[in-house]
C-alpha cells in the first residue's frame, strides 16, 4: 500500500479537487455578517511632508463609517511594524532602523505608502470617501536609485547617507593577498534587477472582532500565520496572543511577498476592534504593485582572482542593496546572511570577502522574493565565472569542474561561514551536459548561423542554503525568532490521522507530500490522513513556509511526531499481545510480536488507546496524540547545474529559449511530480527576471512606471518552453528525511544560465537583466560598431 502512496511516489495531489472545481477558499472568498470595507489612502508622491490632512468631507460622505490615521493608531498604542533581524555594521554598530508606522504620520516616503484608511459600508462608499480626503503635501526631493543613495538627501531623520548598515563577511586581508598574487583578475559590474513578486492572488485581510469573547480573528493571506500572530501581538500590540487568532486559508501563491507583516492586515484587525464590526480589505493589482515587498535590487562590483591554471584564488565583492523606504519584516537578512554566505557557490575558492551597504530610497520596501539573496549571489558568481572562462579561453564547463568542491571533500567548510554537508556537483554538471547535448552545440550553432540566427549556450552551477538553522546560530546572527518547525499527529479513535503542521502551503502541495511521509511512516493510506495548516487556533506554534524549508524542517518534525506515535503504539501493542515493547516490530501498519503471527493493526491500537478497557492505565495515558518540534543542526544545501540554449534574431534582438535543462540535487524526494512542478515554476520566474521583468521607477518623480500587468512583463505561456529535468541524489546528512528543499532552486539557478547563453550568442561581455529584444539588439549594434571601428 505505502509503496504506491508513500515516500517517492508520484501521487496526484489531495488538495486539487477543491481548486479545480472552484471550491478553494481564499481570504477574499470569506465574508462576515455586518462587514465593513477598508480603502487605503496612498501617497501619490515619492517623498512629501503631509502639511495637513482634512478628513471632514470624507467623514460625512454617505456610507463612510470611519476615517482613521496614524495618529489614531498611536492613540490606541498600535506600534510600528518591526524588522525581525538585527544586523551589525563592520564597526559593531547596530543597523539603523527607522520607525515604520502602519499608517504614516507627517511624511510619506514612497509612492503608494498608506497614510489613512477610510472604512465604509461598501467598498464603493469607502472609495468615494477616500476620494474626498484632502491632504496638503509639500513635495520633497526623492531618490529611487540604489547606486547613488548614499550621496542623496537623507530620507529618514538621524540616518546619514541613507545607510542602514555596512556589513562585511570573510577575510579581507587574505582576499586582497589572493588578488595581488593572481595571474588573472576578472572584474565585473553586476546589477540584479528589482522585481515585483505578483502572486496571482492579491493580498487580503479580514479582521473580525468578537466583543463577547474579546477575541480578534484575522483572516489574511499569510505564508506564516503563527509568526504573524506573534509579531502583531508582541511587537505591534494588536491583541494579546491568546486573544488573536490568525487564519490563512487557501493562499494563492506567495513567493516571499506574503511572509511579511504589512500595514493593511494590521489596520483591518485594529479597526475591527475599534469599530466592533468586521473590516475587510482586498488589494487590487495596482496596490499589489505599489505595496507588496519587492525583491532583489543590488548593484555590485566583483573581482575574481585566478592562477595560471584557472584555479580560483579569491573573490572580492562589494554590493549596494536597496531596502526601499522602510525595513520590511526580514529585509535586513536577505542581502547579508542569505547572500554573502552563498558566494563560495560550488567552488573551493579559498579566500572570499564581501561588503554590503544597505540603503534607503524612496521606493517600496524590498524583502525576500523567491530565492532571496541566493539568486543575487548565484547570478554574480556564475556570471563572473563564465566571464573568466571566456577571457582565459577555457571551456566554461571545464573551468567550473576544475574548481568544484570534490565529492569526497564533504563536509566542506567555506570561507563565508557555511558548512556544506553533502553534494555531488560534478555529477550534476555531467548529467546536465549530457541531457542538453552540450557536445553537439557547435553543430547547432553552425546550423543556426546558416539560417542567419545566433545561437548561444550558457551554464549555471548553483548552490542554495535552505531551512535556515539552527535556531541558536540564527539568534547569534541577529534573528529575532527561532527557526524550528512543529508537528502534531492526532490519531483518531477509528485509526485515521489528522496531522497539524506549522508550515503553510500556498501551492507547494503539503497536504499531499506530508501525507505521503505519514503514510510511509504509519503504514496507512493517504485517504486516512488529513493535513491541517493555516489556523493558529488549530495547530500549535510554527514558523511557516519560506526559504524552501517546509519539507526539510516541517517534514522532519512530522517524522519525529510519527516516531513518537509508533513508540507509544508499540507499548500499547506489547500490553495487548503480552510481550515486551522491544519485541514488537512495526511494519506496514501492523504491530507484531517478532517471529510470531501475534499482531495488532494500527487501527486496533488507536481504538484501544481511546477506549482503554484493556490498557495499561497505570503506566500509560490513554489517547494517541504526539507533538514534536524539530530544530535542524544545519542548513540544507540543494545544488544543481542548469544549461540554457538560446537563439537570437540579429535583425530584431528577439531571443528565443530553444532548450532549458535543469539537473538538481534535492536529496530524497517525496513526490517527484510536485518537485518537478516546483522547479518548473522557479525556472519560469528566473527566466522572467532574466528576459522580461523589471521594476522601473521614474528617476525624477519617483513614480512607479511598471505599476500594472500591462507595464510589467509577467512571463506568459508563449514566452516559455518545456523544461528538461533530471536529478542527482545525495541525501542531506542531518535530517531524518534526507531532504534538502526544492522551492527556490529554479529561480536561483536559471538567470545566469540565460544571460550566459545570450551573451555567448551575441558575443558581448555584459548584458543587464532583463535582456529584452531592445537591449539585445542595442548590444549587438554596439558590438558590430566596435568591430567596424577597430
Amino acid at each position, binding site marked *: 500500500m505505502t509503496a504506491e502512496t508513500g515516500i517517492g511516489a508520484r501521487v*496526484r*495531489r489531495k*488538495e*486539487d*479537487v*477543491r*481548486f*479545480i*472545481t*472552484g*471550491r*478553494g*477558499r*481564499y481570504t*477574499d*472568498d470569506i465574508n462576515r455578517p455586518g462587514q465593513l470595507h477598508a480603502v487605503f489612502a496612498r501617497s501619490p508622491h515619492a517623498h512629501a511632508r503631509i502639511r495637513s490632512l482634512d478628513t471632514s468631507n470624507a467623514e460625512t460622505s454617505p456610507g463612510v463609517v470611519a476615517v482613521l490615521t496614524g495618529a489614531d493608531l498611536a492613540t490606541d498604542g498600535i506600534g510600528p511594524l518591526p524588522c525581525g533581524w538585527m544586523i551589525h555594521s563592520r564597526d559593531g554598530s547596530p543597523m539603523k532602523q527607522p520607525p515604520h508606522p502602519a499608517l504614516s504620520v507627517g511624511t510619506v516616503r514612497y509612492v503608494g505608502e498608506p497614510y489613512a484608511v477610510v472604512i465604509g459600508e461598501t467598498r*464603493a462608499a469607502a472609495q468615494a470617501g477616500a476620494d474626498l480626503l484632502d491632504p496638503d503635501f509639500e513635495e520633497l526631493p526623492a531618490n529611487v536609485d540604489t547606486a547613488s543613495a548614499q550621496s542623496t538627501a537623507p530620507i529618514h531623520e538621524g540616518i546619514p547617507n541613507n545607510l542602514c548598515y555596512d556589513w562585511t563577511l570573510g577575510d579581507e586581508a587574505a582576499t586582497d593577498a589572493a588578488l595581488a598574487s593572481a595571474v588573472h583578475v576578472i572584474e565585473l559590474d553586476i546589477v540584479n534587477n528589482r522585481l515585483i513578486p*505578483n*502572486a*496571482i*492572488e*492579491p493580498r487580503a485581510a479580514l479582521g473580525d472582532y468578537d466583543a463577547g469573547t474579546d477575541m480578534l480573528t484575522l483572516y489574511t493571506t499569510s505564508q506564516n500565520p503563527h509568526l504573524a500572530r506573534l509579531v502583531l501581538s508582541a511587537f505591534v500590540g494588536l491583541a494579546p496572543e491568546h486573544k488573536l487568532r490568525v487564519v490563512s486559508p*487557501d*493562499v*494563492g*501563491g506567495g*513567493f516571499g511577498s506574503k511572509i511579511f507583516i504589512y500595514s493593511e492586515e494590521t489596520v483591518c484587525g485594529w479597526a475591527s476592534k475599534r469599530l466592533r464590526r468586521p473590516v475587510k480589505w482586498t488589494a*487590487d*493589482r*495596482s496596490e499589489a504593485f505599489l505595496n507588496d515587498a519587492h525583491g532583489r535590487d543590488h548593484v555590485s562590483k566583483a573581482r575574481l582572482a585566478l592562477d595560471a591554471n584557472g584555479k580560483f584564488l579569491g573573490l572580492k565583492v562589494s554590493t549596494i542593496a536597496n531596502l526601499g523606504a522602510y525595513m520590511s519584516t526580514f529585509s535586513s537578512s536577505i542581502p547579508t546572511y542569505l547572500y554573502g554566505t552563498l558566494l563560495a557557490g560550488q567552488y573551493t575558492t579559498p579566500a572570499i570577502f564581501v561588503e554590503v551597504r544597505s540603503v534607503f530610497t524612496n521606493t517600496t520596501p524590498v524583502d525576500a522574493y523567491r530565492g532571496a539573496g541566493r539568486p543575487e549571489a548565484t547570478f554574480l558568481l556564475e556570471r563572473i565565472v563564465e566571464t573568466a572562462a571566456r577571457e582565459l579561453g577555457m571551456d566554461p564547463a571545464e573551468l567550473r569542474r576544475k574548481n568544484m568542491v570534490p565529492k569526497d571533500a564533504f563536509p566542506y567548510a567555506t570561507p563565508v561561514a557555511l558548512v556544506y554537508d553533502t553534494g555531488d556537483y560534478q555529477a550534476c554538471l555531467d548529467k546536465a551536459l549530457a541531457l542538453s547535448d552540450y557536445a553537439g552545440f557547435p553543430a547547432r550553432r553552425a546550423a543556426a548561423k546558416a539560417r542567419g540566427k545566433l545561437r548561444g549556450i550558457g551554464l549555471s552551477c548553483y548552490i542554495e542554503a535552505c531551512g535556515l538553522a539552527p535556531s541558536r546560530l540564527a539568534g547569534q546572527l541577529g534573528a529575532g525568532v527561532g527557526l524550528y518547525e512543529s508537528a502534531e499527529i492526532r490519531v483518531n479513535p477509528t485509526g485515521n490521522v489528522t496531522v497539524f503542521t506549522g508550515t503553510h502551503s*500556498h*501551492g*507547494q*502541495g503539503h497536504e499531499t507530500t506530508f501525507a505521503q511521509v505519514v503514510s510511509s511512516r504509519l503504514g496507512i493510506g493517504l485517504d486516512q490522513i488529513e493535513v491541517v495548516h493555516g489556523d493558529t487556533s488549530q495547530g500549535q506554534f510554527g514558523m511557516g513556509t519560506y526559504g524552501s524549508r517546509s519539507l526539510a524542517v516541517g517534514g522532519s518534525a512530522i517524522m519525529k511526531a510519527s516516531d513518537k506515535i509508533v513508540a507509544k503504539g508499540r507499548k500499547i501493542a506489547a500490553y495487548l499481545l503480552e510481550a515486551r515493547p522491544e519485541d514488537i516490530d512495526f511494519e506496514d501498519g501492523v504491530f507484531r510480536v517478532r517471529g510470531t503471527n501475534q499482531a495488532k493493526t494500527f487501527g486496533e491500537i488507536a481504538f484501544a488507546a481511546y477506549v482503554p478497557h484493556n490498557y495499561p492505565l497505570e503506566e500509560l495515558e490513554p489517547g494517541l496524540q504526539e507533538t514534536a518540534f524539530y530544530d535542524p543542526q544545519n542548513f540544507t544545501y540543494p545544488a544543481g547545474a542548469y544549461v540554457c540554449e538560446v537563439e537570437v534574431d540579429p535583425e530584431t534582438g528577439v531571443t528565443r529559449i530553444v532548450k532549458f535543462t535543469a539537473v538538481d540535487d534535492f536529496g530524497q524526494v517525496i513526490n517527484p*511530480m*510536485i518537485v*518537478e*512542478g*516546483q522547479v*518548473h*515554476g*522557479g*525556472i*519560469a*520566474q528566473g527566466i522572467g527576471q532574466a528576459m522580461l521583468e523589471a521594476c522601473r521607477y521614474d528617476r525624477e518623480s519617483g513614480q512607479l512606471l511598471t505599476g*500594472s*500587468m*500591462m507595464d510589467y512583463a*509577467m*512571463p*506568459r*505561456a*508563449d514566452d*516559455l518552453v*518545456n*523544461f528538461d529535468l533530471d536529478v542527482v541524489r545525495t541525501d542531506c546528512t542531518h535530517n531524518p528525511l534526507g531532504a534538502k528543499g526544492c522551492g527556490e532552486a*529554479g529561480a536561483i539557478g536559471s538567470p545566469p544560465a540565460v544571460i550566459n547563453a545570450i551573451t555567448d550568442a551575441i558575443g558581448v561581455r555584459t548584458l543587464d537583466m532583463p535582456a529584452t529584444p531592445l537591449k539585445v539588439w542595442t548590444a549587438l549594434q554596439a558590438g558590430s560598431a566596435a568591430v567596424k571601428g577597430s
Partner: protein
Amino acid sequence: MTVKVTTTVNGKPVSGDVQPNTLLVEFVRETLGLTGTHVGCDTSQCGACTVHFDGKPIKACTILAVQAEGHQVVTIEGIGQPGNLHPMQAAFQENHGLQCGFCTPGMIMAGIGIAERNKGTSLSEETIRAELEGNICRCTGYHNIVKSIAAGARDM
C-alpha cells in the same frame, strides 16, 4: 440606484439588484456567491476571472453584469463537480497543472475554449501556448498547464 439583472448562470436562472457599473465578475462572486471565479488584476491581463459566455471564454472583468442579461454564463462551478469532473478539470489534476489554484479556474475555462476552437485538429503545444496568452500563472511555469490542456482536449 440599482438595476435588476436577470440571466442564466450554470444553467439556472438568476437575478439580482446591482449598481449599473457592477462587473460580471463582481456579480458572480459577490451577488451569487460563486467564488470559484477569481480576480487577479485590474487590467484584464491575468485571466483568473475567465467564464464562458454563450459558450465562449471571456474575462468576466471586461463586461458589466447588465450585459449578461438574457445570456448564458457558465463558471467553473458549472462545468463539473467533485466525483463528476469535466475532462479538462481531471486533466489538470492528472498532469499537476496547478499549484496554488488561484489562476486554475480561469485556466480550465480558457483551456476548454482552446480545445473547442481547435476541435478536429491536432492541438499543438505551440497553439496552446499562443492561445493561453491571456491567462497568467505565477506558479507552474506553464509546462504542466500546457500538458493538461493537451490531455484535456484529447479527452473532451
